[in-house]
């Protein structure tokens, strides 16, 4: 079933508008309108308007500015945050070194007929909130391989693996996961096809090109700015209003772009340097292990310091090992100091695609 279809079904429980209510509303509106026809000038009426959306918008802005200040205050109190612009000196050093290393590590050469194989493994949390108000959670693991032809405008092949529950936070979570699996398999063919091979020219698996930062991938690879500040400004612009904070959203956008596996070295370097300019980015773990590989975790806190968005970088090759979201406190059935989701990415060159 399609997400939009499910969402649309939700509105069917609202009947049509009560005629009496609409009639009352009409009277109210038309009384105001009638007033306009009897007053001398229309401009007078306009000035007397009952609701000014501009005034209203301003109020919202002030409210959110106050909220931001409040949140800022809490974050400063709870978490050690760097002073001044950009990441901490330590994080900036790691990122800038990674940028230098990644330029040295030349991109894998893919010859005509060969494919760049981008292998990802991903873990996501699932949760069920129960009638007693508690939430239980578990982690599902999935993965896939994308085969990118030497000529990237050619046909890409994507093999999608099933999503299976792998880690349970308690026996109740295990039981819920079982229940859910059972109900999913009952649905049979009604559900969307989640597994198996998909093909798409130039990586357009769903009729339209993949995008990074709001730009079609192949175009983005060519045109995204290589100047770190410009790149970061663009990221902020494209992600305005999204995510829990502009900083975490910026870091997450960089991670999403890097995990496509096809970002060339010069752009990769620019992305690391841009990450070094994000305020609040810290070295979160010097020896972080993700999917069996070790690297340096660079992260940015959000939610009053309860959560952290990390990217894990191999300092030697300057390649991104993966990304994760860390829960530093127990929340929503996920224990403290746990990655609620992570993705690892590995690239290699192969001679054939499935």
């Amino acid at each position: 079933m399609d997400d939009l279809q499910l969402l649309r079904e939700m509105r069917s429980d609202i009947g049509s508008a009560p005629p009496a209510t609409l009639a009352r509303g009409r009277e109210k509106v038309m009384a105001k309108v009638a007033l306009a026809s009897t007053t001398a000038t229309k401009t007078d009426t306009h000035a007397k308007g009952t609701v000014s959306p501009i005034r209203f918008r301003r109020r919202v802005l002030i409210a959110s500015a106050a909220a931001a200040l409040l949140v800022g205050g809490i974050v400063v109190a709870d978490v050690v945050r760097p002073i001044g612009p950009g990441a901490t000196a330590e994080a900036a050093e790691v990122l800038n070194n990674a940028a230098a290393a990644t330029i040295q590590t030349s991109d894998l050469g893919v010859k005509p007929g060969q494919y760049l194989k981008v292998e990802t493994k991903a873990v996501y949390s699932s949760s069920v909130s129960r009638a007693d108000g508690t939430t239980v959670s578990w982690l599902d693991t999935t993965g896939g391989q994308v085969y990118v032809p030497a000529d990237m405008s050619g046909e890409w092949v994507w093999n999608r693996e099933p999503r299976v529950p792998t880690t349970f936070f308690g026996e109740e979570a295990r039981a819920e996961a079982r229940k859910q699996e059972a109900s999913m398999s009952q649905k049979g063919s009604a559900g969307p096809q989640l597994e198996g091979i998909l093909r798409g020219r130039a990586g357009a698996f769903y009729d339209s090109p993949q995008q990074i930062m709001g730009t079609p991938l192949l175009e983005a690879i060519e045109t995204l700015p290589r100047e770190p500040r410009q790149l970061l400004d663009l990221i902020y612009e494209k992600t305005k209003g999204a995510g829990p904070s502009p900083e975490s959203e910026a870091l997450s956008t960089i991670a999403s772009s890097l995990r496509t596996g096809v970002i060339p070295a010069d752009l990769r370097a620019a992305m690391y340097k841009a990450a070094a300019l994000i305020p609040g980015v810290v070295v979160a773990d010097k020896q972080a292990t993700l999917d069996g590989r070790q690297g340096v975790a660079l992260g940015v806190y959000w939610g009053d310091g309860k959560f952290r968005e990390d990217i894990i970088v191999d300092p030697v090759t300057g390649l991104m090992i993966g990304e994760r979201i860390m829960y530093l406190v127990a929340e929503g059935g996920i224990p403290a100091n746990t990655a609620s989701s992570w993705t690892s990415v590995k690239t290699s060159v192969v001679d054939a695609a499935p």
Partner: protein
Amino acid sequence: MSTDNDIIRRARDSPAVFGELYDRHSSIIYRYAARRAGDFAADDVTSETFLVAWEQLETYDLDREDARPWLFGIATNLLRRHHRAEAKMLKVAAKAASRDSVGDDSDRIAAQVDAAVTTGRIARTLKAMAVIDRETLLLYAWADLTYEGIALAMDVPVGTVRSRLNRARRTLRTQLDLEILDETENDHGRLAAAPRNA
């Protein structure tokens, strides 16, 4: 039948004509507002939307035949005043549909349980979503506006609508355990089942 811009043009000189615009669109605005924030809010939002529309009648672009994007844009702004009512509705929907409240009744068939669980998850996801993303998604799914319509309603470029919609749908799909596209796809890409009416 006259188009919306005809009505608006005539209403500028003969205010009583404005009633035609109300008669034509008040019920869809009401329904949309009721779905989002409940009947009480819908009552207020519907009449206020047309009052604001009346006040701003001179600013309406007469080249646009369909006034719905404009009206939904006003309604969207007004609905922000009712964010508490909306949050409460979503909270109730999320709770009422939580698995345990329906799941153990052996008389119910699995499909009903699934539908209820799905509703609950959608409600929870909508509640957690950034406001502009939720507004974009619901203008699309509940108000049936096109990308261009939403762009007009929210006064942003079509590209912004597209990326907000993609982001919102991705979140929704993740929460619904539908196809997860972001491994090798990406956060901002267009997702499956690209809308045909865009």
